């Protein structure tokens, strides 16, 4: 008797072997992956906007190049992830439509505005930093193409984090105005960065199954704690004030304690009412709408070429 697809699948998950696009997989596994991977892809692409907002105004030519290359990398990450999601038979058009309709989410941090040059530093340092914590764990995810995309992406994210932190160091060592700019950015970016890890484990709708399928390997709260623990010493090194008065080292736990996240704000922003949600979607949609004639022309050109070579 040959094994059912389900039995083979279960055994592979149990043995921590990768699931590949041609393998049988439960419909819900596929659905869950499409949700998580397309959300991740959208985050990379929408994430181009807040930092992209400073490319034209970067304070030195060198910083301009580093930032432009960084934002370009994020586009590349989006591309790997869209391609990986396409192996599950989701199309780019469908994913974009879900993004525009609000059905597909993206990291809610990108619904906050980048208001000063220091935000570019804080985003690289904290947002890419939080992404790395999450993505390192996802390198071991059970779906092969997702895991391989994560391994590729993680290398570049570490660069981004270092570059962001370098901007913060320059500002923290600068004039009082620059230091204040850095502090203000830290204060604003800190909480949304913590929210990037998602709701508490007790309140996370998708966590249970994702863990069972080994799509996710560590819980939201666990990842968030790692991020706080690694970041607090970095804040101290900069000589900036902690953005949360409740941050305290807890000897017994061996971790930093910290204050409660404003979950109402989290819900409000993720459900579409953050400061920039509408701008982000409008920007993305506008680019695609304005590029439609280009994509159509490309298609028409290739069709003509194909029929000419067939004739």
């Amino acid at each position, binding site marked *: 008797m040959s094994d059912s697809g389900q039995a083979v699948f279960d055994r592979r998950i149990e043995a921590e072997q990768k699931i590949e696009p041609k393998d049988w997989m439960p419909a819900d596994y596929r659905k869950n992956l499409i949700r998580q991977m397309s959300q991740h892809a959208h985050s990379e*692409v929408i994430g*181009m*906007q807040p930092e*992209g907002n400073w*490319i*034209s*105004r*970067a*304070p*030195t*030519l*060198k*910083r*301009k*190049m580093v930032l*432009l*290359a960084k*934002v*370009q990398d994020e*586009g*590349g990450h*989006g*591309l790997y992830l*869209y391609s990986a999601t396409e192996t599950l038979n989701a199309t780019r058009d469908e994913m974009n439509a879900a993004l525009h309709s609000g059905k597909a989410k993206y990291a809610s941090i990108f619904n906050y505005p980048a208001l000063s*040059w220091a935000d570019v530093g804080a985003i690289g340092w904290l947002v890419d930093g939080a992404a790395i914590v999450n993505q390192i764990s996802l390198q071991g995810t059970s779906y092969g193409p997702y895991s391989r995309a994560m391994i590729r992406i993680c290398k570049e994210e570490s660069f981004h984090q270092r570059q962001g932190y370098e*901007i913060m160091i*320059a*500002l923290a*060592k*600068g*004039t009082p*105005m*620059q230091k204040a700019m850095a502090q203000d950015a830290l204060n604003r970016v800190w909480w949304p960065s913590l929210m990037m890890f998602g709701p508490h484990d007790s309140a996370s709708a998708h966590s249970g199954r994702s863990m069972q399928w080994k799509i996710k390997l560590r819980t939201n709260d666990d990842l968030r704690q790692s991020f706080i623990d690694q970041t607090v010493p970095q804040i101290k090194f900069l000589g900036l004030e902690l953005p949360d008065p409740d941050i305290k080292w807890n000897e017994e736990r061996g971790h930093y304690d910290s204050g409660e996240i404003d979950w109402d704000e989290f819900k409000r922003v993720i459900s579409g009412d953050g400061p920039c949600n509408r701008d982000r979607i409008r*920007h993305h949609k*506008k*680019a*695609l709408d*304005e*590029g*439609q*004639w*280009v*994509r*159509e*022309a*490309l*298609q*028409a*050109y290739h069709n*003509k070429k194909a029929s000419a070579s067939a004739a």
Partner: protein
Amino acid sequence: MNNFSNSTLYNYLLGLADDALILGQRTSEWCSRGPFLEEDIALSNVALDYIGRARMFYQYAAEVEGKGRSEDDLAYFRDEREFSNLLINELPNYDFAFSMVRQYFLDVHACLYLQGLTASTDQHLAAIASKAIKESRYHLKRSQTWLLQLGLGTEESNKRMQTAIDELWGYTPEMFMMTETETQLSTAGIAVNRDNLLQQWTATVTADIRSADLQIPDQQWQVVGGREGKHSEHLGHLLAQMQILQRSYPGLEW
């Protein structure tokens, strides 16, 4: 002994640097706004090449000037009237067709110009040119492909490309004008004589445009003045945005 002054070479280098920076800044505006993600990434690459090129020219210009100024001093602390880029570089990205046709005209020119510059008697310039020409050859492959694809694509894309060609045509003669500075330096074997490029540029462009089912405009017109700092109204806004932080807080480290 050279019979030109340092300021002659400095002015020449600034022109080349300004051309690269202004086009790089314009092209970077496509980032997150491309017609699809792959193209978005490719355009950012082109922008990066140009900003990198600008930095090499500014660094050299600053060295030649010898007043201890940096590449950023030159990029961030000069006004519109002091920028000497060719006008074609500063025009807005009216649409994708406009940006691609501009890029194509400039790429054909850059490949010829940089080829000449690799033979410059100035070693520093020749070295910059050898690096830049590799990028420009790649840019040209891309823009030539776009010209063909959009010219032969749909009725709409053909129309948009033709409009872009018509609107940009009068900005191309400036690419072949020699300033007094350049004439001096070209006699000394340092700069490239632009006159010598026109014929080949025209031949290439004419052939490519025809094979893309597009037309060379028969109306001849030209707008010039960039090298003397007589710009379009667009440049001031570009600079205002680009220079804002340095101008607001001069002298800081970032």
